[in-house]
């Protein structure tokens, strides 16, 4: 459903991504793994149309995403959970979700469905989102993206800075979404965070793909060693 072909992205003439290519099939979880500054976040931003200058092509359900204005991209059914959560911190939980719902004109049904996944947000619906704990903020960032009822979800380091119980809660949500047929592109730095959920792993270094492996190969010691080597852990 998502085909990225020879994607090259620039930030003010500095090449960040170099001819990156990968495919993501429906209901699959694809993980991009790599060190700081490898280009993982830039890959997600390029898909969302938030990078000024890109070359190559991004196809989503046979539609070209590259070149269309950024605000049309979520309307195609792509939900984005950015790095560092990037909530509208001065708005309430409900208002943050409202922004998500507005994107594809979804209504109360969607909101109720999303809130049933995260009962803690329901309890804090009128709270200013900046006053939530880190884990709750991450839940809200995920919930906000789910309010557009995405068929593709982009997750940028959702486990960053969270306590273990929160990480497993987020992981369970990912597995639940996968079961519902949502495709997920997951960016992480730590390999432990993704092994239980990933169908395929791609290692990115200096903006290019250097290694990739499927889930069934994870048991293979050599593959695993390779993965650890590339991420430097």
């Amino acid at each position: 459903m998502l085909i990225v072909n020879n994607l090259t992205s620039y930030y003010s003439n500095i090449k960040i991504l170099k001819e990156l290519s990968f495919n993501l099939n429906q209901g699959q979880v694809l993980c991009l793994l790599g060190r700081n500054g490898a280009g993982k976040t830039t890959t997600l931003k390029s898909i969302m149309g938030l990078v000024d200058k890109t070359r190559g092509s991004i196809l989503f359900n046979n539609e070209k995403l590259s070149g269309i204005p950024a605000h049309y991209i979520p309307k195609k059914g792509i939900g984005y959970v950015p790095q560092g959560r990037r909530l509208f911190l001065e708005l309430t939980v409900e208002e943050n979700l409202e922004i998500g719902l507005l994107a594809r004109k979804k209504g109360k049904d969607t909101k109720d469905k999303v809130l049933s996944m995260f009962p803690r947000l329901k309890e804090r619906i009128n709270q200013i989102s900046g006053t939530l704990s880190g884990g709750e903020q991450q839940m809200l960032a995920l919930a906000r993206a789910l309010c557009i009822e995405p068929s593709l979800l982009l997750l940028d380091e959702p486990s960053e800075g969270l306590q273990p119980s929160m990480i497993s809660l987020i992981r369970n949500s990912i597995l639940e979404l996968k079961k519902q047929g949502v495709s997920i592109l997951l960016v992480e730095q730590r390999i432990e965070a993704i092994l239980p959920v990933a169908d395929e792993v791609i290692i990115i270094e200096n903006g290019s793909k250097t290694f990739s492996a499927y889930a069934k190969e994870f048991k293979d010691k050599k593959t695993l060693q390779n993965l650890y080597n590339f991420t430097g852990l």
Partner: protein
Amino acid sequence: MDLGPYLLFASLEGLVHAAVLSLIALGLSLVFGVMRIVNVAHGEFFMLGAILTWWVSNFVMGNPALGFLLALLIVPLVVGIIAMFSDLLILRHLKYDPEVTIIATIGILYIIQQFALMTFGPDARPVEQPFNIRLDLYWFGFSAYKFFVIFSAIILLFCVWLVMAKTKFGLILRATQLDSEIAQAFGIPISTVYSLVFGVGAAIAAVGAVLIVPIQQAHYLMGGEPLLLAFIVVIIGGLGSLKGTVVAAMLIGISDGIISVFFSPNLAKILATLLVVVVLLIRPNGLFRTIRI
């Protein structure tokens, strides 16, 4: 007149100016808050509102209230559309780069000002008050129209607050203000939002102009001083903060009125500017703006 009534008179005069000032500053603050640009041409949109009001009121014969009402309806609309076009034609192509935008809005300032000079001329022209009633306040008489100005400004401020706090459009504006990139990632067409905000900001200033012209006369250079005062107000109140803008406008407007009446208008400006320096030193984000990380 005793000191008490004299002080009341000065405060009322100050309140009229504070009302109009809060509208001008609100427009400036809205544009900065959402678009993160400093609009140096803001005062000229105010001036444009004033001279258009003069035209409309001269065009409509008969009862001056008729021309005034018509002006109140169409002048903000026309000024807003002109502002939107200057955004579409100029600012959008500069990608709202903060420094370049300042230079560009200085350019817009001169274009509007010279256009006004060429068409409207260098004279100050009065507009008749829509109604001429004096209220007897025991010690002195005070124009009922001035109360109407204060009242109208309060209504408009309340409407703006209502739109910002309670409507979907307001929510979209606040989200764009907080994080425009993420707003885009959730389907908000920020360039359309920017054009609208630039138009609305100028239109609010134009409403202020329509209200003040029957008291102050229209002149092609009248945009300079309100711009300076509006800057002072938004710096003291905190850019992008509605509450801060209103409170600071009251503070500056009323103290300006009192100091002008008792001492001199120049002293009022000097003290206001001094206040800006003090606020910038002790609370650089303004009195009502919490620091955002």
